[in-house]
């Protein structure tokens, strides 16, 4: 049962709430308008950034340099379409993609395993340091001919080269990741008598995820380089082979078309990775989200 003054007080509340709510609404609308504005501006900027160089290229090719040397956006597009029609685009792209992805995966697995071992064992790391640094400073590309002699001109040699390029980035990242695992977290779990497997699952692996993502991000570019270089040296298909084959017959449209596909592949890889990273590392970004007001 409410007494009279209480009821008055309670009736007073909604109006205050209402004022706060409208204020909040106004603020929200303002913010939405502002973010829409920023988004539109962003799309315009992006479009300009892409269209202007393309138009410049086309004009350069039409009026000053000549398509013989630099081809042109339109003839490259033309080539891409005709390649897609006869299926050669898909075949070459798939070949390079397969080499890069399988190689990346092998390098990743090997790098993570070795990196974790070296991170946890200072003794092992100290002992192997000169060997690792030696192989790391060696331009791995120079190993390509050896891989081809050992493993043939098929997929295996390319995968080996890609893996050898990617391996070290992953290894160094993961080793550093292991070394920077929060000691107090481990101690906290140890003080609660957590088993080794629980600590690996709850602390070690999640601590390494950001480092692994970082190494994949660098590794993607390296994997494509490795695959293309391996193809330049010995192969009968793939985008790298296509670039070399086309330049060999002064077919600039063909070589640039292959390069464009490589570029698009790299962009797609990075985009997929960015999305995966955003989802997995939600806890990291959440602090930032909290701050955006």
């Amino acid at each position, binding site marked *: 049962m409410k007494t009279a003054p209480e009821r008055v007080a309670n009736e007073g509340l909604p109006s205050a709430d209402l004022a706060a709510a409208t204020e909040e609404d106004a603020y929200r609308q303002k913010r939405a308008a502002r973010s829409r504005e920023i988004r539109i501006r962003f799309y315009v900027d992006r479009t300009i950034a892409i269209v202007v160089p393309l138009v410049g290229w086309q004009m350069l090719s039409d009026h000053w340099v000549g398509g013989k040397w630099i081809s042109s956006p339109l003839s490259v597009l033309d080539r891409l379409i005709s390649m897609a029609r006869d299926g050669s685009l898909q075949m070459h792209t798939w070949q390079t993609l397969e080499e890069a992805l399988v190689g990346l995966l092998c390098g990743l697995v090997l790098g993570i395993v070795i990196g974790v071992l070296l991170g946890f064992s200072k003794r092992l790391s100290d002992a192997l340091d000169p060997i690792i640094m030696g192989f790391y400073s060696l331009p791995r590309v120079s190993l390509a001919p050896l891989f081809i002699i050992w493993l043939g001109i098929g997929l295996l040699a390319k995968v080996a080269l890609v893996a050898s390029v990617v391996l070290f980035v992953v290894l160094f990242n993961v080793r550093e990741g292991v070394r920077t695992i929060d000691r107090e977290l481990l101690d906290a779990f140890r003080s609660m*008598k957590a088993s080794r497997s629980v600590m690996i699952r709850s602390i070690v692996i999640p601590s390494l995820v950001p480092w692994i993502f970082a190494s994949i991000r660098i590794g993607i570019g390296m994997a494509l380089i490795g695959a293309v270089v391996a193809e330049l040296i010995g192969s009968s298909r793939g985008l790298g082979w296509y670039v070399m084959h086309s330049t060999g017959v002064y077919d600039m449209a063909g070589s640039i078309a292959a390069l464009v596909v490589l570029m698009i592949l790299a962009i797609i890889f990075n985009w997929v990775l960015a999305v995966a990273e955003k989802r997995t590392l939600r806890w990291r970004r959440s602090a930032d989200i909290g701050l955006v007001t």
Partner: protein
Amino acid sequence: MNPQFSVDPMPALLERNDAQSERVNARGAPAIDVSGLSLRFAPTGSRRNSNLALSNVSFQVRPSEFVAIIGPSGCGKSTMLRIISGLLAATEGEIKLDSLPVKRVPEGIGFLFQSDALLPWKTALENVTVGAVLAGRSRREAESESRSLLHELGLAKALDKYPAELSGGMRKRVALARTMAYEPRVFLLDEPFSALDAQTRIHVGNHFLRILERLGQTVLVVTHDIDEAIAMADRVLVMTAAPGRIAKEFVIDLPRPRDYYDSRFEPGFREFQERIWEILRREMEGVLGHEDRS
């Protein structure tokens, strides 16, 4: 939930006279028994001599007693907590928890670290649940238990937030909730509030004090804050500069329940404050003087 002691009299006690053994039994076996503890660090870097961090430290903490250890920075007080919890091995001396010698990490240690040591990729609730699961509860039990602990600590709105989204004081309370969920026999707190600003420290300190007083568990807290030590503890042990020893012991007989802030207005508080500061100042002067000379 105090540990019960129906322990047989230890052989050493049997040799003593009856009156003495009776008194020891009446008090019960100490919850924490540190005797002759020394720690020597191996020489590192440019230092050529080994470094004595703790020198023959002995003290006891009775069951349900709240003891604070205070000392100048670098006196090895945090290191000592690590030894007591079995995370670090001593060079010499023995630690007993409930009469059992500590080798490796014993059961029922509730260690609260200086940093919050929360998993950054888990929410507050998930972090606390870890404690309950490690205490042997089923997942479901652990979660409902953790939920109510967080409610109790005023963190109902923070259940699904990640540590990075919480303030320092909230993270501290989540860390306490996790330690409570582990249901330890002994709480070891390593400078629990040193990272908090003054107002938050009072707020969180009161929360801790209320809960620890209610649980009535054995608590050993390490701090560099004199007021905090006096306000919280039944007994304050003052350590010397490194190598750390126990310089003096103060029994704080202020009435309970205490208040983290208001207790400083109790009669007698100031006197403790002055006497502890007297010792600490002397120790700090020694350290600073030494640094000036070298």
